[in-house]
């Protein structure tokens, strides 16, 4: 299998993590080697020394790009979800990663604000948070993303991406999604049920 890197970009609370997690689940069920790189998680580990200035944001994406490059060239399905607001940084990621697929979460900012349970947008508007993307720091939308999701449901969004991956030959046997058990797995389940005296 060829590795690839699905790069979710969009405003805060646009649904990147939710869709990326759901997609990761489906790809795992298909038997792919999957790795998730999520903004919130990476900022607590690999990039915990970085802030939100433009320089630090670029460094953040730079490091994540490096990891995604290593993984994607080693046949891993890498799913990255970062605001990644600047085109230049995303362009650099595209150049580095194997089979880069940009997914633009084109969710209207009003909906992002409604979903914002932590109230970050409100704090940014009051000036309590500085350099907040979409409020006092720019978000540069992709000019030509492979996939653009305009506030579609989780299921529809995942389906759109899976269809794209199938069309491009990155996944081949999607019927497996519905028929989740292989003959070997069925035999294992049968054995467990027998061991418990259920069948």
């Amino acid at each position, binding site marked *: 299998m060829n590795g690839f890197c699905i790069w979710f970009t969009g405003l805060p609370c646009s649904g990147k993590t939710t869709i990326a*997690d759901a997609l990761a689940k489906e790809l795992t069920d298909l038997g792919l080697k999957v790795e998730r790189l999520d903004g919130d*998680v990476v900022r607590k580990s690999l990039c915990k020394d970085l802030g939100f200035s433009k320089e630090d944001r670029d460094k953040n994406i730079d490091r994540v790009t490096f990891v995604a490059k290593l993984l994607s060239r080693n046949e891993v399905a890498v799913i990255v979800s970062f605001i990644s607001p600047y085109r230049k940084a995303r362009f650099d990621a595209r150049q580095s990663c194997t089979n880069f697929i940009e997914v633009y979460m084109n969710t209207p900012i009003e909906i992002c604000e409604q*979903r914002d349970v932590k109230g970050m947008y409100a704090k940014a508007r009051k000036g309590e948070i500085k350099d907040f993307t979409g409020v006092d720091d720019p978000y540069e939308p992709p000019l030509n993303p492979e996939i653009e999701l305009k506030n579609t449901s989780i299921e529809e969004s995942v389906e759109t991406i899976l269809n794209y991956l199938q069309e491009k030959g990155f996944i081949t046997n999607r019927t497996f999604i519905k028929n*989740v058990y292989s003959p070997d797995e069925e035999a294992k389940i049968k054995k*467990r049920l027998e061991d418990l*005296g259920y*069948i």
Partner: protein
Amino acid sequence: MAFYVLGLDGTPFSLISEYIDAGIMPNFKSYIDQSESSFVPLLSSYPPISSVAWTSFMTASNPAEHGIFGFMDFNRPSYSLTFPNSKDRKKKTLWEIIAEKNMTSAVINLPSTYPATPINGLMVSGFVALELEKSVYPLSFYRDLKDMKYRIDVDLTKAKDLDFLVKDLIEMLEIREKSFRLTLKDKYDLWIGVITETDRLLHFMHHAITDKSNIYHSFVMEYFNKIDKLFGRLVDDFFDENPFIMLSDHGFTGLKQEIYINNWLIENNLMVLNKSHPASIEDISGKSLFMSLDPGRIYLNKREIFENGLEISEEDCKKYLDDLESKLFTLKYNNEAVIEKVFRKEDIYKGEFLDIAPDMVILPKHGYDLKARLNTKEVFNSTHITGCHTYDNAFRITNQLMPECISIQNVGEYILNFLLDY
């Protein structure tokens, strides 16, 4: 506020009552003794088996609505067998419904949730989960579980060795507590954690409960004492005075005999096999009138459901079922009648999947377990398994006022209404 649900798979009301009276479960007692708490028996599902009962709970609906009737089902219109999984569930779960109101859930080791499906929160699937990686959502939580050496279940392949099982049950309870604590650190609107080791213990060691001379007699008491202590710690550290329900999905009783109902159907010329040494029910002949799946599910072999089935008019269906019911009540072991109740599907199910429901569900008397197995010619037999499920005698303990909740499905309905109204 969070709503906490703790499941003790298969734990009977009567056993908890006995152990509370004996001073083995003091934390249960002190929780129940609080003025607003209640401890009452609960009814399971038809049939009383975890896949059906927990799915009725998680979807707050009956099997003809959620479409799960057992751990195994026919892959209609053929007689081949299939193992229903979480993607076969036809009804939304509690966590899917409350997610529409932006509420979050953590669901840990709930049976019949494999493979894990996307959730607004966290999911670790329970029995019959196979691979941990496919049991976890989101995938980022997989590493946390690997780091704590999480396991899905006891090693059932070695459970016949009761010394091994004792050690494994203790180890698994420690794993359960670790995984619960890991997920309870974060706040969710709904948290569901299930301990399935109780069911395993009762299947393999039920005989040790009453037999004081049995070498595992004190272990069973010690194990429930461990569960009591675990409960006490979770109440102190997390549950506190939040809305809380602890429940089991079915009751348990000592097993006298297994009844191989398909063999009985064959003896009564109601079922025919294509092979003299059948591997499974899949080797059934189209000439059969009835066939059975575990536990106590009876299907009429009708052409409208099974492609090789018999053409049977509606009038004849009723007559055949009436005749079968009469015959079943004559089934005896050592002169003791073994059938308690027989239900037609219309009596117990209601929903758009009624057509794939078993035509009849049999509840045996306590101590008898109806099996569909065909690896012997006998009708009655016994194995190393010493405990079996019951429809009655499950339990619930809660700090909620919910007197109308008499079945596991009702508990699901209560939680859903509570969270949607909150």
